[in-house]
C-alpha cells in the first residue's frame, strides 16, 4: 500500500516528463516571388502579374497585402518606403483574386502557397511619369488580443514595382556617372592620378539619374591606353536607377571595379565608365599615369645607399691618411 502511494505520483511524473504536450512559439516564415517587377506601360493599358506567397510555417497564417509608395532609394537600391503616404495612383493597383483584396486579411494555409493577382490599370489620362511602390505582405495582428506582458512581433515581406507610364518604351532620362580610384598605390597631381603599376587599383563608380524616368546601368568599365585601345574590360552589374537618385556601380560579381596593371603598362591610361542604356548614355573617365613607382623607389633607395656607403668609405680613407703621415 505504501509503495502504491509512491508509485502513482511517480507514474504521473514520468508521463508528464516523457510525453510533453507539443508547444510551438508562433513564428513567421513567408516567401514572395517575384521580388521585383519592372513595367513599361502606355496610359489606358492594363497588366496583371501573379505574385506567389508561400507560408513556410506549420500553422495557417493570417496575412494582409497592401501597396505603399516610395520616391527615394539609397545608393544600393533599397527603397525608402513611405508608410503614411497614399497618393491617388495607388488606386491603379488592385487584386483580381475573388476573395483577397488589398488591405483585407486573408489566410494562407500551413506549408502552402497563395497567388495574388495584381492588376495595374492605368487611366488613359494618367500623367506620364514613373510610379514606384512596394507590395507588402504583413502578418495580420490584433494587439488587443494579446494577453501577455511583452511585445507582439509582426513581420512584413515586400516586392518592389517600378512602373514607367509613357507612350514611348524608353522615355529619355539624364544619367551622370562618376569614377574615382578607391584603393591601391596612387596619388593625385592636378587632374591626373599617378599610380604604381605593380599594385592593383580598385575604383568606386556611381551613376545619378537626374531625369524623370527609370534607367538601367548597362555598360562597361574599361581601362584604355593610347588611342583608346582597351587594356581591360569589365561589365557593369545592370541595376535600375530610379529618377533623382544615385546608385553605386559594381561589376557583374557585385564588387568594385579593379584593374591589375602589369610592368609593361607604363604611361598614360584612362579608366572609363560607359553606360549605354536604352534611354540614356553617360560616360566619365579619369586619367591615370601608371609607372613602376615602387620598383623605382627601391632602385633609387639602393643607389642612395650605395653612394652613402662609398662616400663613407672615401671619407674614412681621408681621415686615415694624416695618421700614417704622423707615423713617419
Amino acid at each position, binding site marked *: 500500500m505504501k509503495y502504491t502511494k509512491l508509485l502513482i505520483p511517480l507514474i504521473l511524473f514520468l508521463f508528464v516528463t516523457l510525453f510533453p504536450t507539443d508547444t510551438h512559439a508562433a513564428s513567421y516564415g513567408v516567401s514572395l*516571388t517575384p521580388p*521585383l517587377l519592372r513595367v513599361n506601360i502606355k496610359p489606358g493599358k492594363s497588366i496583371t502579374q501573379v505574385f506567389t506567397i508561400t507560408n513556410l510555417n506549420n500553422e495557417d497564417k493570417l496575412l494582409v497585402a497592401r501597396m505603399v509608395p516610395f520616391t527615394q532609394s539609397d545608393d544600393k537600391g533599397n527603397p525608402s518606403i513611405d508608410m503614411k503616404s497614399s497618393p491617388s495612383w495607388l488606386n491603379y493597383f488592385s487584386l483580381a483574386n475573388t476573395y483577397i483584396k488589398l488591405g483585407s486579411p486573408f489566410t494562407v494555409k500551413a506549408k502552402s502557397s497563395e497567388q495574388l493577382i495584381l492588376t495595374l490599370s492605368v487611366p488613359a489620362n494618367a500623367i506620364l511619369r514613373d510610379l514606384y511602390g512596394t507590395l507588402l505582405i504583413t502578418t495580420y495582428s490584433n494587439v488587443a488580443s494579446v494577453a*501577455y506582458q*511583452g511585445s507582439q512581433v*509582426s513581420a512584413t515581406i515586400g516586392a518592389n514595382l517600378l512602373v514607367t507610364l509613357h507612350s514611348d518604351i524608353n522615355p529619355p532620362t539624364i544619367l551622370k556617372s562618376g569614377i574615382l580610384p578607391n584603393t591601391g598605390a596612387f596619388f593625385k597631381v592636378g587632374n591626373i592620378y599617378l599610380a604604381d603599376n605593380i599594385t592593383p587599383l580598385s575604383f568606386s563608380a556611381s551613376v545619378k539619374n537626374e531625369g524623370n524616368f527609370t534607367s538601367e546601368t548597362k555598360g562597361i568599365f574599361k581601362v584604355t591606353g593610347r588611342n583608346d585601345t582597351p587594356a581591360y574590360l569589365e*561589365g557593369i*552589374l545592370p541595376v535600375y536607377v530610379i529618377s533623382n537618385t544615385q546608385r553605386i556601380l559594381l561589376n557583374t560579381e557585385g564588387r568594385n571595379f579593379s584593374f591589375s596593371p602589369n610592368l609593361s603598362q607604363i604611361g598614360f591610361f584612362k579608366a572609363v565608365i560607359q553606360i549605354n542604356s536604352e534611354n540614356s548614355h553617360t560616360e566619365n573617365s579619369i586619367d591615370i599615369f601608371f609607372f613602376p613607382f615602387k620598383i623605382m623607389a627601391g632602385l633609387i633607395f639602393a643607389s642612395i645607399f*650605395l653612394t652613402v656607403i662609398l662616400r663613407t668609405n672615401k671619407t674614412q680613407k681621408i681621415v686615415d691618411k694624416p695618421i*700614417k703621415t704622423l707615423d713617419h
Partner: protein
Amino acid sequence: MFGFPQSPQAPFTTISPGRTMSVQTTSKTVNQRSHNAQSHLSNHLITTLCTISSLILYVIASIVLTFSFHYPVYADNLFSPSFEIDMGTVNITGGSKTSTTYRLSDTVGQTAQGQFNSAGYIVKAGFQYVRELTPFTFTVSNLDLNYGSLVPGTPSLLTNILTVTTGSAYGYTVKTLEDHPLRILNGSPTIADTSCNLASTCTQTDATVWDDDARYGFGYNIQGTDVDIADFVDNTYFRPFPIQDIDPPATVMSRSGIATASAATVTYKIYIAGSQAAGTYQNNIQYIAIPSF
C-alpha cells in the same frame, strides 16, 4: 652587415693608436707598397660601384623616358562585335563572357520594342543578373515576446532570430519599428524607450552601451550576419525602436548582394525601476524585409 670586403691590410688603416704602432714595426717600403696596392684596390672598387650606381640611375632615366612617351602596341583590338551587349529584353537566355581582359554578362531575348508597340506594355519580372526566379524569403523565429512578470532592478531579456534569403533578388534590408513604447493597455503609464547609458546616449539609428543600473527602459540589440557591427559592436550595445507614424523605420540588417539564410539574433531588454506602475505592458514590433531593386 653592410659594406664591402676589405683587404687584409685594411685594419692597419684605422686611426687606432695600437694598430698604428704595429705598422711601425713593418719596413717603410713594404708598408708603402702595401698602402699603394690597397689604395689602388679601393679606388678600383669605388670606381666600379660608382659605375653600377650610375648605371642604375641611367636605367631609371631610360625607363622613364622610354615608357612615358612610348606608343603602346597591342596584339588585338578588343573592340569587336562580341562585346556588343544586347540587353534589356525579356530573358530567354544569357551567360557570362570572360577572358583575361574582359568579363561581361548579358541576356538575349526578343525585341522589347515590338512587343511594347503592339501590346502597349512590357513587363519584366525579377533581375537580369540572377537568372533563376526564386522567392525572397523572410522568417522570424518567435512572434510572441512574453516577458512574464517584470522584476524591478533586474533586466528581462528575450530573443528571436530573423532570417533572410534573397533568392533572385540582389540585396535586401530589414527595417524595424514599434507602434508605441511598451504601455499598459488602454492606460497611460509606459516603459520608456531606452536612451542607454548617460555617458553616451543611443538613438534609433545609433547603438551605444546600456549597462548602467540606474538607466531604465526598453531597447534591442542585434547580432549576426548582415548586421552593422560598427554600430552593434557587441551584446551590450542597444538602440530604442523607432515609433510608427513618427519616426522612419531603422535598418537592422542589410546586404548588397545575394544572401542565403542570413540570420541575426535580436535581444530585447526591459529594465524597470521600483517606481514603475504595476500593470501589463504591451506593444507591437514590426520587421519589414524588402529586396533591393
